[in-house]
């Protein structure tokens, strides 16, 4: 039964992932639709950031992840390389947890 559930989940996930590439595919989109699609990653990324930094299950927390995100923010503004940004965030959180 577990195999059936994993198989169903795999099929549904793939079905959802391919909807855009297959249905939208080569079709030329209207201007308004193009604008919306171009903007779509922005709120999704914002949501991933705040959930990754502040959520734990169904509750919100301010913990070592928040200062780590602040450090990342400063580095992003200063145009630091991507690798530096994510490693500095991990180092900040790890150091704060070590001290705590």
């Amino acid at each position: 039964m577990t195999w059936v559930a994993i198989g169903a989940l795999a099929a549904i996930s793939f079905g959802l992932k391919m909807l855009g590439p297959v249905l939208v595919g080569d079709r030329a989109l209207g201007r308004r639709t193009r604008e919306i699609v171009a903007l779509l990653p922005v709120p999704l990324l914002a949501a991933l950031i705040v959930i990754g930094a502040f959520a734990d299950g169904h509750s919100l927390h301010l913990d070592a992840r928040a200062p780590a995100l602040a450090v990342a923010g400063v580095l992003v503004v200063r145009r630091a390389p991507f690798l530096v940004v994510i490693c500095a965030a991990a180092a900040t959180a790890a150091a704060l947890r070590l001290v705590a």
Partner: protein
Amino acid sequence: MQLTPRSTALTEPVVRDAAAIGLAVGTFGVSFGALAVAAGLSPAQAIASSLLVFTGASQFAFIGVLAAGGGLVAATLPAVILATRNGLYGVAVAPLLRGRLLQRLACSHLVIDESTAMARAQAEPAAGRRALIATGLAVLVCWNLGTAIGAASGGVLGDPRRLGLDAMLPAAFLALLAPHLARPEARRVAVAGGLIALAMVPIAPAGLPIVAAGTAVLIPRMARGRADGPA
């Protein structure tokens, strides 16, 4: 200037960044593998899940419900809700994936949080497509290696949080969001999306806050309709 081969060199920034994201995600694959086995999956089932479902948040939700004593249907539903955001990602990257149907189908499997973010951070469609494939493959390989290691180790490797690895992904997403924020309307949409997600976390099933945040793309349109001028 073209002294080095362009598209596949390991030193290419996109490939280097993709590898870094893959490694960060791979450490969570280790915890997924360990937790999946603890929740009652066999190692083969844990690896099949990482290979075939391949969307981490859904997989964590699935084993999370199983571990809490829930049934298979109760475990599958939140995982499906979480996977709906991959549907939105698919729409967002569709313009980059023009080409033969078979290629589009193959690329579809790689449409996840990290690969979508990397792809849409590129200026050119061709670079976006390469970023999607590089990041998707790096994560696929590392996530599955991690799952196998975690499933085999039975949780002796410890918590990735101690190394601050859970702070890596929000930082990565922030770095990927930044290039979009040059436009004022994108800044408004980002703030609205973040607020919607935060407001939904306490009340909605996992995954739904991210999907709900997607509705923030409609805000500039509404503002324009109301003011009928530059907002």
